């Protein structure tokens, strides 16, 4: 086990995004803050509460989830993809870094970025709504696991992608719509039929609800559902990534 090699890659990944904090941390923070202000204020004038929670507080967990998922994904996908394109992947492949070390380094860095954005979003939101944390353990579980899962998905996307636009495919056409339709801004329970039923197939719904349970203490679905989905995804994606890295899928010729 090359612990130092793994730590070096991790530290390099963190430094990579910290070198341009405006782009990697501040800009996502501003856009989630804008969501918060625009959606929050325009809708909360009509919708006062959702399930007994003030509307502004209701949307906070979803926005945090959005920040984590997007930034974790973006970090690992862009980092690995750039490494492939600029040829520095050679350094990683020649070095004594096994699949586990590569995975930990890339994913660790991406998780840090996702969590930094998530926690800062939370801090900004707390200025508007006050600080809500009902179940610290559940909240930590969802924060960590969602950053882990989306970092992994980003890594897989970058391995598969050959063109830059391909790594944007997943965030634009899958993650964005699913998250926006995933009950960030409303409760899917209150949607009219058949949207309410259709939404039940959206895995993001359960992840957002899980985090909502952790922070606000109540949600439409049991957090165990979201937790189960995240764990399942984490296991499958970890397995896939390790196998792909070991085989050098699209990394070695």
């Amino acid at each position, binding site marked *: 086990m*090359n*612990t*130092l*090699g793994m*730590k*070096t*890659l991790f*530290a*390099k990944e963190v*430094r*990579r995004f910290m*070198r341009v904090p405006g782009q990697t941390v501040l800009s996502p923070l501003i856009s989630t803050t804008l969501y918060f202000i625009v959606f929050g204020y325009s809708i909360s004038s009509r919708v006062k509460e959702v399930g007994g929670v003030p509307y502004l507080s209701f949307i906070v967990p979803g926005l945090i989830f959005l920040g984590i998922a997007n930034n974790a994904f973006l970090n690992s996908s862009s980092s690995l993809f750039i490494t492939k394109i*600029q*040829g*520095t992947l*050679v*350094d*990683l*492949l*020649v*070095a*004594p*870094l*096994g699949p586990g070390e590569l995975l930990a380094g890339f994913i660790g860095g991406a998780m840090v970025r996702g969590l930094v954005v998530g926690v800062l979003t939370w801090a900004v939101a707390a200025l508007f709504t006050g600080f809500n944390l009902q179940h610290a353990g559940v909240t930590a579980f969802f924060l960590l696991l969602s950053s882990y899962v989306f970092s992994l998905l980003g890594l897989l996307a970058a391995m598969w992608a050959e063109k830059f636009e391909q790594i944007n495919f997943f965030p634009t056409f899958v993650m964005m719509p699913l998250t926006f339709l995933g009950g960030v801004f409303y409760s899917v329970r209150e949607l009219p039929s058949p949207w309410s039923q259709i939404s039940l197939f959206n895995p993001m719904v359960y992840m957002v609800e899980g985090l909502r349970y952790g922070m606000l203490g109540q949600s439409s679905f049991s957090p165990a559902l979201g937790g189960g989905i995240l764990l399942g995804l984490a296991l499958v994606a970890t397995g896939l990534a390790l196998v792909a890295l070991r*085989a*050098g899928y699209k990394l*070695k*010729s």
Partner: protein
Amino acid sequence: MSVPVLELQGLTKSYAKLTALSDVNLSIRQGEIFALLGPNGAGKTTLIGAICGLVKKTSGRILLFGKDLDEDPVGPRYEVGLVPQEINFDPFFTVAESLHIQLGYYGRPRDEARVDEVLTALNLQGKKDSLTRALSGGMKRRLLIAKALVHRPRLVFLDEPTAGVDVELRRDLWSYVRKLASEGTTIVLTTHYLEEAEELADRVGVINEGRLLLVEDKASVMRRFGERRLIVTFEQPPPALPEPAQRFNATLSEDRRTLTYVEREGTPPSGELLRELYAQGLPISDVETRRSRLEDVLIEILRGRPQKAA
């Protein structure tokens, strides 16, 4: 005999439409400088890539320091360094940072002294704190070499290390490579500057279309394939080919002014012919000898000049 540093057994790499390496067998000894020569597309980079984990081999075995890479793909790589043919750099890091990161990848802690040492050896100490993207092309290649050496590998692959490097540094690099080899580092290099191979290599391998055509001591290749031409110019053309020249199988030019003798392995030395010509009192105005270079030898081998059994 000690375990070879590197051993390839039946190494084969096939792409969809082309076999880049076919049944390559090779054994590299500790501390030698081995030059892998061949035309563009011969398979040199592919061969190095297969050993360094950049190319997935189709079949065959690769043993690094006696360990089969199929059984342990990671362990032996602590002791390997590669200067890739293509320049790569991470534009966000400085020269020194790149080297520290490289040390880390190889499981070694930060080491300012070592980084300084390598930078000095490659004439980059003045650029220590520059961002890598601010380096000139030749400097980027030097950084690539520094990165491949900073963790003190026992086996170093140099894939065209001096492409685009200026004359002075090329000389410096050659002496550095020789120093490394004398300290026990094993070097495998590819180059299109045959002068470089001639200067450095203990052994050469010639590869073409994925096949290793020849592996031999450089001195012995030069002896077997190399030739020395003796060219004698006369003041007055002799009426006919002088007798000793006939015996030596030398040839006279059409205007009978120049005599050419090709000395190869097994033929009498050209000095002998020259002595006999002088002894005859022929009016010689100029004498020139031309020794073939590795370049000429390589062309001969690639053209498939019939090879004697070694």
